[in-house]
């Protein structure tokens, strides 16, 4: 061996052709589990329009239940029977969830179901640890599929061959089910136009339940089939859920074939990508999704979404600015909050600062989501960019705090301007997923570019200057910025620009007909929201004294979504309340119990059931019911409901 460098070695030792073929097969095997889970998600979304965040949790439950069953019953029958029974058991759990929880909230604003399934996911993560213990569990190998076959000197695991076979079988089975049965016809009809199906007298309740059961069954089967190759543990759900969403979107929502093609595409690109760029796995799916969505806005096999018809039976209160009395009340509330340092300790003040920062962050997302009808799944990108902007300015350029605070968020602005330009070309879930892809790309840059960002070890020592270092001063600073940000956003909502933005949200066509440049308005809104989020992030950097990539991460984006939904997506001040409730509760629970996810998840689920329009939404409804007769509100309600669909 006389190679001296990596490149020479690689060049001189080119692997045989058989290697590429085996690598291709390996990619196909990896695609199998992705496809099973993705097809389930796609079916559920197509019919019920639920963005089922809990799909990963069902996948994980499938793996856990299959582990228990296959450990108890040995032999081939025990193993394969255990896999199928596990999927069935979890499907039953899914049915219960659908009947008890989701049925109550089909008529809630779109995406509200996301909140419910998010709460469930949190609960399941803690529950599996309580039931199955904290250790990683190693399942049995599949009887008859333990070894590998030799292919020109390359080993192909027989279980991989089994997995490669199973996805076309499932695909074919689903195709037959949808094309050849009456149930399948109904499902396809509902995917195209569920209101029409309901109008034709189909029992929607059972259709939805059965579709949900099938989707969950597929997810659980996907999880159960992983036990011969994987370890079963409590983070399985998060590992798969985002990838699966991406696969569904690349393939086109509601398209099973699309999910299959996308799963294969992503897995193969990964299998061959790592040969050239070994670090590509971390970002690959998001790159593919970003490219696909920019080129094909509805995914590979998706169709443009039909104009949504408004959900019947909704009454929404039209928005209005605060009255003079309410303004005074708001000022009084602010004054009370500002007096907190008089009686609270340092820790409470720091928590208060954090809550105020998240009020800014949630309000910025709310502006985009409720006012603009553009639900971003990657809003943390601009929060994090603001934080990194401050860290760069303060640590590397050594600028004073005030300058950093004012200039740092501009990084969020720049990011929002670039990504927003592409994102606003899309709408609905596709918009959401493209924003997610951009956020993940930014995240991976922060994560990988160690020399500049410090990688996941972050940037340390971003502490406030003396004048703001005390907990009380920093609290006042955060509270002040929060009050200004919320006030400015409110002013914009009721400005001509705000009305134009709401017009594009309610009907893009009609608004363009009266001369509003819809895309430009939405883009501007995106930039405003991103900049405000950047301000939140820059304060956050000083509050924590350090910046890490997870301030750009998915979980922070999801937190923001949850805050807005919790407060009430249809209201003007919901985000503020949602942020306070969620953040205060979260901090308190994390401090009080190791099972904070279980309790928080349970709380979110309860809120969803008790307040199907969010906290503020329900409060407003109650107040309006008391205040006004029905005649006045009904005339306005028709106008207001139409935006529910577009708020997706």
């Amino acid at each position, binding site marked *: 061996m006389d190679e001296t460098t990596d490149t020479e070695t690689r060049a001189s030792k080119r692997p045989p052709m058989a290697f590429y073929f085996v690598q291709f097969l390996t990619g196909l095997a990896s695609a199998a589990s992705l496809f099973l889970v993705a097809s389930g998600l796609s079916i559920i979304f197509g019919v019920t329009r639920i963005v089922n965040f809990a799909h990963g949790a069902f996948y994980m439950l499938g793996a856990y239940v299959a582990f228990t069953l296959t450990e108890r019953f040995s032999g081939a029958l025990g193993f394969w029977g255990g896999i199928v029974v596990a999927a069935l058991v979890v499907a039953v759990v899914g049915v219960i969830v659908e009947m008890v929880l989701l049925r109550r909230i089909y008529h809630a604003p779109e995406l509200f179901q996301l909140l419910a399934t998010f709460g469930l996911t949190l609960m399941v993560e803690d529950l599996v640890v309580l039931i199955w213990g904290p250790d990683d569990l190693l399942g049995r190998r599949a009887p008859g599929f333990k070894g590998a076959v030799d292919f020109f000197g390359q080993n192909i695991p027989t279980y991989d061959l089994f997995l490669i076979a199973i996805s076309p079988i499932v695909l074919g089975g689903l195709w037959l089910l949808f094309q050849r049965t009456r149930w399948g016809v109904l499902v396809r009809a509902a995917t195209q136009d569920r209101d029409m199906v309901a109008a034709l007298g189909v029992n929607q309740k059972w259709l939805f339940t059965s579709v949900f059961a099938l989707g969950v069954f597929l997810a659980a089967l996907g999880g159960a089939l992983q036990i011969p*190759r994987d370890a079963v543990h409590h983070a399985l759900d998060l590992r798969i859920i985002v990838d699966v969403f991406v696969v569904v979107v690349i393939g086109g929502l509601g398209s099973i074939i699309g999910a299959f093609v996308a799963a294969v595409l992503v897995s193969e690109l990964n299998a061959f990508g790592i040969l050239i760029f070994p670090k590509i796995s971390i970002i690959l799916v998001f790159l593919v999704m970003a490219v696909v969505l920019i080129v094909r806005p509805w995914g590979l096999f998706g169709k443009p979404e039909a104009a949504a018809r408004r959900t019947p039976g909704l009454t929404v209160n039209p928005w209005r600015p605060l009255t003079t009395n309410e303004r005074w009340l708001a000022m009084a509330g602010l004054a009370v909050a500002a007096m907190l340092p008089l009686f609270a300790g340092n820790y409470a003040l720091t928590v208060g600062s954090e809550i105020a920062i998240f009020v800014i962050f949630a309000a910025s997302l709310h502006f985009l989501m409720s006012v603009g009808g553009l639900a971003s799944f990657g809003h943390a990108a601009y929060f994090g960019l603001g934080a990194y902007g401050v860290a760069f300015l303060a640590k590397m350029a050594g600028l004073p705090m005030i300058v950093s605070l004012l200039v740092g968020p501009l990084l969020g602005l720049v990011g929002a301007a670039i990504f927003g330009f592409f994102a606003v070309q899309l709408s609905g879930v596709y918009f959401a997923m493209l924003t997610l892809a951009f956020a993940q790309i930014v995240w991976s840059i922060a994560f990988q570019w160690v020399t500049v960002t410090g990688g996941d070890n972050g940037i340390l020592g971003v502490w406030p200057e003396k004048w703001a270092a005390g907990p009380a001063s920093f609290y006042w600073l955060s509270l002040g910025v929060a009050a200004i940000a919320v006030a400015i956003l409110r002013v914009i909502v009721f400005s001509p620009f705000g009305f134009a933005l709401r017009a594009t949200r309610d009907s893009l066509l009609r608004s363009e007909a009266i001369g509003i440049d819809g895309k430009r308005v939405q883009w501007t809104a995106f930039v405003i929201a991103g900049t405000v989020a950047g301000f939140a992030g820059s304060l956050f950097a000083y509050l924590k004294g350090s910046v890490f990539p997870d301030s750009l991460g998915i979980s922070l984006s999801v937190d923001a979504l949850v805050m807005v939904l919790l407060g009430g997506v249809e209201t003007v001040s919901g985000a503020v309340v949602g942020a306070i409730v969620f953040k205060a509760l979260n901090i308190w629970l994390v401090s009080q119990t190791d099972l904070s996810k279980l309790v928080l998840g349970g709380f979110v689920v309860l809120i969803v059931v008790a307040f199907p329009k969010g906290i503020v939404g329900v*409060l407003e409804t109650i107040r309006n019911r008391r205040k006004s007769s029905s005649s006045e509100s009904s005339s306005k309600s028709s106008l207001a409901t139409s935006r529910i669909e577009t708020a997706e």
Partner: protein
Amino acid sequence: MRRSYLLGAGLAIAVTGMANAAMAQSGEIKIGEINSYSLLPAFTEPYRKGWQLAVEEVNAAGGINGKKLVVVSKDDGGKPADATTAANELVSSENVAMLTGTFLSNIGLAVSDFANQKKVFFLAAEPLTDAITWSKGNRYTFRLRPSNYMQAAMLVEEAAKLPAKRWATIAPNYEYGQSAVAVFKKLMSEKRPDIVWVDEQWPPQGKIDAGPVVQAVAAANPEAILNVTFGADLVKLVREGNTRGLFKNRSVVSFLTGEPEYLDPLKDETPEGWIVTGYPWYDIKTPDHDKFLKAYQAKFNDYPRLGSIVGYQTIKAAAAILAKANSTDPEKLIAATEGLSMPSPFGEITFRKIDHQSTLGAYVGKTALKDGKGVMVNSVYRKGTDYLPSDAEVEKLRPKD
């Protein structure tokens, strides 16, 4: 209107929740402990048991100079920002004398920077990153576990004896994996200039697609492999590697794999002959360890993991520091800790003055299968002292206080 009103109300609720913070009662010394209990239960449960045992022992022996030792423990959920919040609560509301704990490197660094800023003593238990004592080290932070560099140096000592010249690496794509590979490569190439690195794989942490990774490494045809993955990733890698024959006739050197946390889940699929660092609790026959093992098994009816040792020794060390300083003043705690020696289940350890690293070592051995379970055999304890760079080098690595 409602928003600001509720802002106030919400804050008020938050305050009442948190203001019940106990004032430091006389006759008690509090330690604030932070770890990723909800994110990494497989590691942190044994860790918690370890420190609970230590607290019991310390108090049974009369506490700290007559005062009762109390540990207030918080979860960080695996997020650096939440860890800072928890640290703040422990310091501001609970009035703890010092902070301890943390598992993930970035959380350890976040808390260490917090400690530096707020002038609080911090004893990092687990984070392995070299930065915490070197490039980003500060006078308030000490670290118990052997660092990335030390474990790499221990493994390199064995790896350099192998005849293998063609090496491939598989490591999780984040700071821990990157710096483990970097240090290993550097030290290895110093000892063996004849080595070539033929492939490197960087699967995302927790999300390895093991089939293609194994296949890609096999295609580069290395004679030896360095593995840095652990946990569920390791399980997937080992299973695919076994099926595809990746480890056949190849030497494997692997970080942490001998720790029960990571070895036990492999059960009968444990690959044999890997050179690993770890904790063969069943094989350590020293009086110090026997005493610990007996007490642990008696209290919990379970065997210890490495996390148990780390948790146990963290609180034991904290108690020793507090006893010697006889004060909770951070400056006195630092002065007490620098150069402090104490017994541990692995033998005597010392907190170095030069970089605040403890000299706790690790066991290096080979994996083997015994009764369908993975074990470490031929294990030798490597003292931390022998695997640290010279003082002159350390001084270059660490910023001046």
